[in-house]
């Protein structure tokens, strides 16, 4: 029994890291642009499909590098021509816009790549478990964690050490002041959106390695990401990371005792957090 729980805790961390990757991208966009990007799952699917399409030509590794970048470029374009047009208006409109885009993305991927699940192949040596007793630790999952750690670490570096990151963080706190200081807010939001979408694209490629590649691949990941953001603290990246890991572990452990409550448990956690600490675990007061 203890072993089973331990397994599930570790497994939950792996799933949680994945939720966090999604959620951090969403959270970045939400903090700076006040936009809930419902199309995040759609971008995720695009990233996965692009990687699938490119793999025969540039291999798994090439796809892993290029596909998220291309997705980010698509993100930059969508932001520039569509989403940026609703900045400054009632947040209602940005929600509806990305909601509509989510429809278009899902249907578009189905139109281009078909409704049939596609087999996305990961190099053979990554596919096997590392050890026979810890069989759920496949090479791929360990690699996934490694990559997520590197990327999230890189993101935190960008956010705390580079000019772009400092401006984004300042912008999330007080956009007016930042614009007064001569920062081009349009460009800032555009780049920030691109970073968020890059993370979605990367999550897509990683997801395709262990899930069937179908147009709805991103849809089921959006809600856990929301919950991760709410639990972790609106506007706090560290909080979002923590939130993702927490719900991953919680649903992993719940699967042992009460499998039918694996989703419910994260919402119960969310309700508890909202009651006790409405700004989220690491959120700042008054930032919501």
């Amino acid at each position, binding site marked *: 029994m203890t*072993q*089973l729980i331990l*397994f*599930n805790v570790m*497994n*939950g961390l*792996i*799933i949680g890291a994945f939720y966090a990757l999604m959620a951090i991208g969403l959270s970045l966009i939400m903090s700076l642009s006040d936009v809930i990007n419902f199309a995040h799952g759609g971008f995720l699917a695009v990233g996965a499909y692009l990687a699938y399409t490119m793999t025969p030509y540039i291999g798994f590794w090439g796809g892993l590098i290029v596909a998220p970048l291309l997705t980010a470029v698509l993100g930059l374009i969508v932001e520039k021509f569509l989403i940026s047009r609703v900045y400054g208006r009632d947040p209602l409109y940005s929600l509806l816009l990305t909601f509509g885009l989510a429809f278009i993305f899902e*249907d578009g991927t*189905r*139109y*281009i790549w*078909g*409704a*049939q*699940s*596609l*087999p*996305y*192949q*990961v190099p*053979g040596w990554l*596919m*096997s*478990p590392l050890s*026979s007793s810890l*069989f*759920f630790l*496949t090479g*791929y999952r360990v690699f996934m964690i490694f990559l997520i750690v590197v990327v999230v670490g890189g993101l935190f570096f960008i956010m705390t050490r580079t000019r772009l990151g400092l401006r984004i963080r300042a912008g999330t706190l007080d956009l007016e002041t930042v614009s007064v200081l001569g920062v081009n807010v349009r460009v800032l939001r555009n780049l920030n959106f691109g970073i968020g979408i890059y993370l979605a694209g990367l999550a897509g490629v990683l*997801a395709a390695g*262990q*899930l*069937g*590649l*179908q*147009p*709805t*691949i991103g849809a*089921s*990941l959006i809600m856990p990401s929301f919950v991760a953001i709410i639990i972790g603290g609106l506007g706090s990246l560290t909080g979002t990371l923590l939130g993702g890991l927490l719900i991953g572990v919680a*649903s*992993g452990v719940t*699967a*042992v005792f009460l*499998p*039918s409550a*694996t*989703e419910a448990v994260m919402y119960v956690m969310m309700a508890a957090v909202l009651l006790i600490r409405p700004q989220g675990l690491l959120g700042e007061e008054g930032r919501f």
Partner: protein
Amino acid sequence: MTKDGFTSRLDRRTLLKAGAVIGAAQIASPFVRVARAADTIKIGVDNPLTGTYAALGKNEGIGMAMAVDEINAKGGILGRQVELSIEDSTSGDASTAVAKARKLIDRDQVSFILGNINSALAQAIANVANEKSVFHVVPGGHTDSVTGSNCHWNTFRVCNTTQTEANAVAGAVIKNAGKKWYYLTPDYAFGHTLQAGMEKAAAALGGTKVGGDLTPLGTTDFSSYLIKAQAANPDAIIFLQQGDDGVNVLKQAVQFGLDKKTHLAGAQLELEVLLGLPPEARVGTWVFEWYWNQPNVPGVKEFVAEVRKRSGGHVPTARTWFGYASIHTCALAAAQANSLDAVKMARAMQGFKLPPEIALMPDGAYYRAGQNQLIPDLYVGHPQATGKDDPEDLFVVDQVVNGADVSPTLEETMCKQDWPA
């Protein structure tokens, strides 16, 4: 037929054909549409085009369109051309499916209604069709109740009941793996009945259940279930997930190396799922409901060739055949009864044997009287990582099981038909 919408093409083609019958001179006339509407026989299709079952729905659609063309080429139904009215039922929104069924029946005045892949939606449509007394064919929704406890006189089903599938495959799993089974079952009506069927079939052969979990429909990460399953140390893990869930769970099980520690098996497996799996995950013991590579059955080769023309080179799956057989069932029912009256047609189909060029299986297939369930052959076997002669030849049939031998008896199905007085 490429990936873009088949409805639009279908409409255009049927329109042209209808036009040819009415007379070339009238094609340009604005009244063609009206004339066509009055003269054609409409078959309503209420099947998924979007969501999880979109791929299956598309394949059934290809089979349906092909059958319609064949029928029209031979003069149609009762001398009238046939036209499909296709509605997207969505993959799981029963309210939409019901609304669409009512729309097809009330507004489009269809003579037949087909659907659905999702068992729940199939049952919901069956109830509407029964209320309106419309001849209904379920191409591919498997749950037992449709031709069992909730059966209707007017609802016919092409695909098998879950119990039949379970009976067909249970022996092979016990032989290949052993008697202790752990179930991973999708948490909805289809999954429940399939698991019950497997348990029953296994019990009859001395198999036991060592554990099981219900997984929600649409689960993406099955790892915690797999960990539990592995901990129970079974001879075989029985996967009852379908579609995308099936792809996800098998892909993850094989990544965990479970195929090397225990036997992976299940009941129904579809070519669509195999195609979505990476080669190393194409493992286990399963049952197919129809398979395209049957070199000794006459007519199959031609059928495959024709489907390839329409699907961009892809082979037919069981789904394609379901759609094909469903439309032919409608045409045969009308021809048999020489009427479009639903009661007469349903009476005419009791015990009706499909002609071999439509059944396309060694022992043929017939609609069992009193239940309206098609009793076909089933194909027990194992997948292969890559096809030898054809990349889509991914299944090896070890044994063809005659459905008559593995179907539950009419009493066991609990079907009580509610014929109108």
